[in-house]
């Protein structure tokens, strides 16, 4: 009888094994290896390396290049995340509203998701060409009289940052919309019906029903977007010169790391130290989000994702 139980457990472990092994080899090992590398002066171009304690980290704080990159990353992420989650929430409310009953929701959603399918490289190259000094944006703006003379868009800090923020928002709000909408449709309709019977306004329903029940989903969106945002690379890298031009204003953490990795001898030790600091920073922030958005009243009857899932079939029938 016991043997049967063990065998049953073994089967479970057997099915888990591919993921665990994959995680250890491709997930955990690189993290530990990066940490180890960050204490050395390893380069790609020479065979030998030395243990140099914290020198790589000290150098990062010797001038403001690293802190500027961190600042850029946060700035670009926050300015893209606020409108992204805002628009996603607004659209989700509109799409799921039982008062408005908007038609062809699936079609709208698919259209908003489309930009996400574009290659970041193509998008970046497109915007680079559009906003070049002799590019169409200038031709249009000047001839239409919006600008007195051609402007160097990609040499202006705020235009360039704005473009990165816009592209990030534009390619990702569809994705966020889908997730948020999935969360909203899983909220039982009878709660809204009851609220409407009690004469609640749309805002009251949103504030008192939607938001609390959407919290698990919002935490998920928040954390994944944060992790993605801290690793932002492709668009800012490809939009200008691959070094965060102009004036390093779109030089993100990952671009700085890549520059150290790619420069002359390939200083992977120095690049790893940037990676380690990004890892620590992102981890602290993600844990912080979980902590501050945790369920504070554990005694009260919880309506969390788990329970929502149970109620789901009920809703689909209604």
């Amino acid at each position: 009888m016991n043997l049967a139980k063990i065998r049953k457990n073994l089967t479970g472990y057997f099915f888990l094994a591919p993921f665990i092994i994959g995680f250890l080899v491709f997930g955990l090992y690189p993290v530990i290896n990066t940490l180890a590398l960050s204490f050395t002066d390893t380069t790609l171009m020479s065979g030998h390396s030395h243990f140099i304690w914290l020198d790589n980290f000290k150098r990062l704080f010797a001038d403001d290049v690293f802190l500027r990159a961190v600042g850029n990353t946060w700035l670009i992420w926050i300015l893209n995340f606020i409108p992204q989650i805002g628009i996603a929430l607004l659209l989700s409310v509109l799409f799921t509203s039982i008062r408005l009953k908007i038609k062809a929701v699936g079609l709208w959603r698919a259209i908003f998701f489309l930009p996400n399918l574009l290659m970041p490289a193509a998008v970046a190259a497109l915007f680079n060409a559009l906003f070049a000094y002799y590019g169409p944006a200038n031709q249009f703006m000047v001839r239409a009289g919006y600008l007195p003379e051609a402007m160097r868009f990609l040499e202006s800090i705020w235009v360039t940052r704005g473009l990165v923020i816009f592209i990030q928002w534009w390619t990702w709000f569809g994705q966020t919309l889908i997730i948020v909408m999935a969360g909203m449709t899983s909220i039982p309709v009878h709660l809204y019906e009851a609220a409407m019977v009690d004469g609640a306004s749309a805002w009251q329903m949103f504030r008192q029903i939607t938001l609390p029940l959407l919290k698990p989903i919002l935490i998920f969106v928040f954390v994944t977007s944060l992790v993605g945002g801290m690793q932002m690379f492709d668009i800012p890298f490809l939009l200008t010169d691959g070094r965060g031009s102009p004036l390093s204003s779109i030089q993100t953490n990952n671009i700085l790391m890549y520059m150290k990795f790619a420069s002359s001898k390939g200083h992977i030790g120095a690049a790893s130290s940037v990676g380690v600091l990004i890892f620590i920073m992102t981890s602290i922030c993600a844990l912080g989000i979980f902590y501050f958005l945790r369920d504070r009243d554990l005694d009260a009857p919880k309506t969390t994702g788990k329970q929502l899932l149970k109620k789901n079939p009920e809703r689909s029938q209604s």
Partner: protein
Amino acid sequence: MRKSVFVFLSLLVVASVLLVACGTTTPAPAATDAPVATNAPAATDAPAATDAPVTELEGTLNVWSFTNEIKTMAIAFQGRHPKVKVVYTMIPMTNGEYQTKVKAASGTADSPDVVALEAAFVKEWVESDLLANLNDLVPLTKELKTYPAVIQVGTYEGVTKGFSYQATPGAFFYRRSIAKECLGTDDPEKVQAMVADMDKFVETAAKIKACGTGDYYTVGSGAELFTPFLANRAQPWVVDGKLVIDPKIVEYVHFAKMMRDNGYESGATQWTEGWFAGMNDTLKDANGTSKKVFSYFLPTWGLPYVLSPNSTPKDGGGAGTGGDWAMVNGPMSYQWGGTWVGVLEGSPNSELAKEFVKFVALDEENLTNWATGVYTNEYLKAIDPTTPDDQAQAAGDFVSSQFVVEKITSSFDNSTLSEFLGGENSYGAFAQAAPSVDGSFLTGSDDAIQRALNDPLAAYLSGTMTEAEMWAAWLDAVRNEFPDLIIPEPPVK
């Protein structure tokens, strides 16, 4: 309520769809890869691979490069050694992708056997332990009279690790029609006298501007002059682990600012659409006013790969500028670019790889064929039917062997390129400049140091940064890429 919601949704859709449509239909601009000229001269007969080599080579060779040029040679190599298969990989080096990719691949199972290395970063590799010793190929250079600078660049501490098929002295190309209109003559000797040094060059630039009432620019981009200034430094970038800011660098920065402020340059970024548009007279400012560019600083390869292919407008409109160009030495002698080939240490095919390097850079027949336009599409397709249609190598690339150069110079007297230059034989002019080229100032750190200057310099030129801020920003950037380099005080504080 519902109506306004619908309007709002529609607006978002319009924004999404419009941009998506743009994204899918507008081809991404090819930033730096110089288009290969397709106007190959008359084909010679099918490949003559019949003079059998002494030992039949066989095997598979992995070759990586950053343009498709060497692919032509790889096909020709397969023509000579039919049992050899060359697997060719092209990775563009727009923002340093190629350099990073090769670095990351070396020493792994994906490592190529042969790598192409551009002048900007060849020294990094020659100074490292990653390239194999090719000293036993050096004796071949004697007979070919390979230009000394070419060998010098490929050598570090007495060990030669790379060879090039090109020598790359630089020149100054100008528009004959504008010279006639603004300077009163288009005669190369007289024009050379007007741009003989930097002071005269600036005087001429002022004349060009005045004569075109502001619609004529002297150069497409001030950045073109960076290489000439670099070539005339007294010291390389790095001496004894210390960054050296040569007075020529400071001079260049001031010069570039002066060119921009006075409107002597078009303001286009090098290797972008606007810069190329000046070559075929389709440059228009934002108001739609036509602008003309008088001259371009380009080296040997710039003529067949950059200037000539871009002299006809891309959309077919307009006559193009072929025949209206002339070439002189310009205010400073310099060299620019060039591609070296080396064998990666530990390559399992090192002997075959060495043969390939020998064929590419040290083979009289190959170099002759390369420079004289023998590698036509028909020739290449006879060896490998899958060859793309634009693979042909037009005549005119300047090769590294003085012996070959002397042999073939006269064949360019009536060539397409000479017609392009209004009858001038560019090959002969380059042949005079090539022996004096000096490669000793290249160091492994050049690429990263120079690229770090672009962004602060652009900010200084457009006025968003002061000169002191520019130097500080550049030195910060260099410090962050070279943990061990000693950084001097900025020239201006």
